[in-house]
């Protein structure tokens, strides 16, 4: 069953066709990488999948619900309930501790639960650093907090935008290992990336060029 389906989606800004009649399908539990050079429409697609933008034309089905039409309020609800976001720049609330940052996500979703947030930090190996402010954490640690924050509400889909773009090799591997774990648990992952190594970690890579799907590659060497 498809968790996400884009049917003939176009996004047009004046003359520019950021997305041009794109159709893709992501199955439940699948791990997909989206690659492409700058200006290929990756960000636009990410915004649409992340319920932060609407396509000009076409239909987007997330878990069976059309997310190409609803009000931004409804989109906020869908994003909150179904999607966990991970960003290249980490984006933590600077004046909240690691555990509090995780709890912010719980706060908007349902109920803050410090124990559960600490457990999530434990999963990413940062239980000891729970009371630290972002400024006291390394980039890799911050991104791991963001992973914990993304998974805390058990989303259907984790959407990661260049998650390792600002990390060194060691931290990149830690994050990829976390993705593998999530994948094994059945979480659907969509990772937008420049990095072929990161793309290769996924089951399948969709390559965008000039707003169109240029090709799809199934990674033969994918290890479960």
């Amino acid at each position, binding site marked *: 069953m498809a968790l996400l389906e884009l049917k003939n989606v176009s996004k047009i800004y004046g003359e520019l066709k950021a997305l041009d009649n794109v159709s893709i399908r992501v199955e439940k539990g699948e791990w997909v990488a989206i690659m492409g050079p700058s200006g290929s429409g990756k*960000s636009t697609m*990410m*915004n649409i999948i*992340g319920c*932060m*933008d609407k396509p000009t034309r076409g239909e987007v089905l997330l878990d069976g619900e059309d997310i190409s039409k609803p009000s931004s*309020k409804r989109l*906020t*609800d869908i*994003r*909150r*309930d179904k999607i966990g*976001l991970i*960003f*290249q*720049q980490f*984006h*933590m*609330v*600077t*004046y*909240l501790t690691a555990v*509090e940052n995780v*709890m*912010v*996500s*719980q*706060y*908007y*979703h349902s*109920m*803050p*639960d*410090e124990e559960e947030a600490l457990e999530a930090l434990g999963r990413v190996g940062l239980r000891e650093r729970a009371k630290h*402010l972002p400024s006291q954490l390394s980039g890799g640690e911050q991104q791991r907090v963001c992973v914990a*924050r993304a998974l805390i509400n058990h989303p259907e889909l984790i959407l990661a*935008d*260049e998650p390792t*773009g600002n990390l060194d090799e060691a931290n990149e591997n830690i994050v990829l290992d976390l993705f593998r774990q999530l994948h094994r648990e059945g979480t659907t992952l969509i990772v937008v990336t420049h990095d072929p190594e990161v793309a290769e970690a996924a089951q399948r890579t969709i390559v965008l060029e000039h707003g169109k799907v240029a090709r799809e590659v199934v990674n033969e060497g994918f290890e479960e």
Partner: protein
Amino acid sequence: MTKRRMFLRMVTASLLRRRSRMLIALLSIGIGATILAGMVTIYYDVPRQMRAQMRSYGANMLLMPEAGETLNPDKLAAALEKLPGDALVGASPYRYVRLDMTSRQQSFTTAGTDFTQIRKTSPYFSVEGRYPEAPREILVGREIAETIGVKEGSDMELTWQPTARQSEGEASDDWKPGATLSGSAKGFGDAMVYVKAKLDDGARIAEIQIDASTQTPEYGGRVSEEPLFLKQFVGKSLPLQMNVEIDALSGATITSTAVVDALNGARAADAAAQPRTTRYRVTGILVTGGEEEGYVFMSTDDLQALTGEDRLDVAELSISADEEQLNAYAQALTGDGVTARLVKRVTKSETAVLGKLQALVFLVTVVVLILTMICVSTTMMAVVSERRREIGLRKALGASDNSIRGEFLGEGMFLGLLGGVLGAVLGFVFAQVVSVNVFNSSISFQPLLLPATVLVSMAIAAASCLMPIKRAVAIDPALVLKGE
């Protein structure tokens, strides 16, 4: 953990861990609240302060006898009883008579007054020398002093020439031995009892005649015939003391007293008809710049001794109250033969000055509040731009517009709360300093001021947050993806 606790944790963390920016907002709210609390305190305290100050411009109420009535110190004291004690600043009685200075063939208007009170009702009076303290000490207006050349320490002989009879006694011959006196007084049932007495050479009563026909015949009426009663008068000098020199006829106490009163009254009236001269010591020259410089001032007691009358023409009252209260006091004082009226010149200008002062304080307060709002609003605006990414992140994490509004409003209100408490305390100190330095008196803390200041501060903080919140809500969550 509940959502509310997390909310509070986020709001306080934002304020406590992002100190510098929040300190500026807190400072502006705090200063605004300080000025607000201070100004409000002064606004309500200024009339009280200024009214006390303005009393230096002179009396604001006059108390006069009604037509056909007389005013005397007892009536004045009775009238003043009706005023609340803390409102009355001073009450100066005045009796104006013309006294002659025979040595210079001059005559001066002389005011009998109370030198203690006059300093309260007319604090602008300036005396070269000192105010009289002992009997037979007087003040002389500068104009008179210059005309006749008296100085501090000079002596002045003043003579009172009676022109008309004031008492109830009938006209009689001059007060001298061998004369006949006649007088009357109210007896039983307010009916008049008439008495005539012939005096011998030693001014003792030789013969007495009583007309008590208006009194009850079997009681008071007997005084004119009862020899034991009449015999008591013969050979005695006036004035007579009831129950000491004269015993009342049993069953006719009131009528008996009326007889004695009539004789004493006749004697006083007769005595009052005599010119009398007394020597006074000038203790100071009065400088006012006004008509008072043409007057001689002596104590009511001295003037009474000279004229034999305790009559007053007017009393000047200085009352600390606003115009409305003054009108109410005037109404309360009027009656029992006296009329009170406001000195419009003083009360009107006082009201006008206070009104303008309050308007000024009000205006300053409003301006300060607007400035505070602009300052807080600007700071919060800067806070919003500074936290664009954080707001975008929160929205990306699923924060609804209302959550964002709530969080910013929460921070704003919390700042308002802290600033308000700070402001209420500092504002009181500020008002106190102003009061002590400008008005020379301290003010009492109004307990209501604390909650009022806090509420207003919170409202202003909330209002200041409206624009920044609008901007925060408009932030696009997608910006967090673009790697900004």
